């Protein structure tokens, strides 16, 4: 650990605020259930038996620790820094999402809930939720925007195979934000027996902190693995940011290591200047949506506007409140890459290293393509390969005019 820090990172505060962000902006019906959830989360995350069960599940069911992989050939081709990949794509169900659903499902079980609900964009969180529900014998309903249902049909089928009911959401923009609205409506209605597993570090307190804590296993492992493998911490961490759970999971254990640069990569879609993007930190402003104050994409009258990204998992007009705070405080920097840049990076990694990345993770890879050549060969970049690209075959093929 660095020794010269002025003050250790300590957010959120007792009421769930990260500086001016975060908080608890929900209808009255949810105030008490959220307080019960906060108490359960604070209690069990200190309890040795709970943590032991969580660790065992992460090891035996998810396959953790996930390795870090030195992408030597790609590093050589880019001619700059050494690039390491944190292989969350190798987790059971194919992405980092399961780290969180395992944790929340264990909480649901301890709280006596018999039914879980989830929202999903790309379908990875929906699959990860359906997976843990199947394993624990819980009823599971997944809300998914109608547009995402169409572009991620393989994941829809996987969820149904796992026994989940997938509800196609036809309101609003019919994507992730509307799925989240619909899941909230379900929760308000069925709050007595239902646990809402939010898939990212967004939503009302305690979700942003709780999901972060479950995902922080990514950063804890990475930190230890880098120290063991190369004897020092990386110079930069790079991760894609939609809601921001894989990025926070990687960044959080490094927040007090001031010498490590933290770079979050948003989806610039067709280009920030076109307005067709999903980059609230780069091009939005603060507001209140889905239970917390954070950067949003909104029009001048405070209406949330539709987003665009080739990647369903990044197609969200808000972002976790902790990222808003890390941006304002200057601890992390946020950049954006376009659909075209992400697709190019997708192909490069596939051809150079034999690893097919998710389109979400490809945004982080595209930033590495820009960053690595500006660094020396003895410098280190660790990028979170948050998911695998199997789910994106149809989307990538369609970009090339092919139909699978």
């Amino acid at each position, binding site marked *: 650990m660095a020794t010269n820090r002025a003050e250790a990172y300590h957010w959120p505060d007792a009421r769930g605020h990260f500086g001016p962000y975060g908080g*608890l902006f929900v209808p009255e019906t949810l105030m008490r259930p959220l307080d019960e959830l906060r108490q359960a989360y604070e209690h069990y995350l200190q309890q040795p038996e709970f943590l032991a069960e969580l660790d065992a599940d992460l090891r035996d069911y998810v396959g953790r620790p996930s390795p870090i992989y030195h992408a030597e050939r790609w590093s050589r081709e880019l001619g700059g820094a050494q690039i390491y990949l944190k292989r969350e794509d190798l987790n059971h169900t194919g992405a980092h999402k399961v780290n969180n659903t395992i944790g929340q499902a264990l909480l649901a079980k301890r709280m006596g809930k018999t039914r879980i609900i989830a929202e999903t964009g790309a379908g990875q969180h929906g699959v990860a939720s359906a997976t843990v529900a199947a394993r624990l014998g819980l009823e599971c309903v997944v809300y998914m925007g109608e547009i995402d249902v169409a572009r991620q049909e393989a994941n829809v089928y996987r969820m149904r195979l796992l026994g989940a009911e997938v509800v196609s959401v036809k309101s609003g923009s019919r994507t992730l934000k509307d799925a989240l609205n619909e899941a909230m*409506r379900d929760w308000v*209605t069925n709050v007595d027996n239902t646990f809402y597993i939010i898939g990212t570090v967004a939503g009302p307190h305690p979700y942003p902190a709780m999901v972060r804590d479950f995902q922080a296993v990514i950063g804890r492992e990475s930190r230890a693995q880098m120290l063991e493998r190369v004897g020092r911490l990386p110079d930069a961490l790079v991760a894609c940011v939609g809601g921001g759970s894989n990025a926070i999971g990687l960044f959080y254990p490094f927040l007090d290591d001031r010498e490590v640069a933290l770079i979050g990569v948003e989806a610039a879609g067709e280009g920030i200047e076109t307005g067709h993007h999903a980059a609230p930190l780069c091009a939005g402003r603060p*507001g209140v949506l889905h239970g917390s104050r954070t950067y949003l994409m909104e029009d001048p009258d405070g*209406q949330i506007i539709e987003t665009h990204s080739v990647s369903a998992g990044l197609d969200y007009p808000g972002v976790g409140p902790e990222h808003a705070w890390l941006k304002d405080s200057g601890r992390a920097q946020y950049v954006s890459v376009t659909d075209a840049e992400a697709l190019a990076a997708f192909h490069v990694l596939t051809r150079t290293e034999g690893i097919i990345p998710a389109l979400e993770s490809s945004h982080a890879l595209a930033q590495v393509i820009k960053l690595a050549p500006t660094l020396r060969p003895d410098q280190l970049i660790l990028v979170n390969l948050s998911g695998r690209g199997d789910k994106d075959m149809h989307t990538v093929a369609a970009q090339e005019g092919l139909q699978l």
Partner: protein
Amino acid sequence: MSRIAARFADLAARGRTALIPFVTAGDPDLATTVPLMHAMVAAGADLIELGVPFSDPMADGPVIQRASERALAHHTRLRDVLDLVRQFRARDAATPVILMGYLNPVESMGYAGFAEAASAAGVDGILLVDAPPEESGELVTLLRQAGIDLVYLLAPTSDEDRIRKIGAVASGFVYYVAVKGVTGAGHLDLADVNAKLTAIRRLIPLPVGVGFGIKDAETAGQVAAMADAVIVGSAIVGRIEALTMKPEHIPGAIGDFLAGLRAAIDATDRARGLK
């Protein structure tokens, strides 16, 4: 005394339970809203809740979601809603108007600017579904200074601590959400509602309105027996939706529907008066 407090005091003196209809401003168009508000008053509405459309109405069921979408399809903005209230005030200086909606459009306008503009337009109260007391301290202060009541929801899940906390900041009246769920959902358990209202009255000295799940004259009459105000939203908005192609018929049709609710509430009030 605020217009809301004065109205409830007057109703209490007359033994009359308030009828509060909810409509979404700008649904199906801006031109319909003000004539509709006047028609509702003529049919027996005592206060009016005017919905401010929002793109992500997470506490609303499908009927009011679609009303928001219709209003937003022609870009009804918060400033347009305030303009409608100003127009309504030109002919009706007595009926309180409460805006109901979500925080972000207000936050986007700026709390101070909103408080000033709303007060100038003749708004009497505001209910922001996603702004609990813990998160609305600054807004409460500014609205109080502007003479605007802040109306809060209470829910079946609100325990004594929360009822007290809300009682400490609420003014005008409080709104009890009679069912767990979104607007327009579920069915009322009158015994549960009655028990909760008793608990609320013990802790909060304000009139208590009851809404969510009141669909017809029968339930309106039943709720009137226990509440200070009967709040009806989705049942009205659903009737507006059926007439979106003939908006000129909306004020008359909604007036007729409200007159039926009013008659049932009056019957309850008369029966209580005879006891």
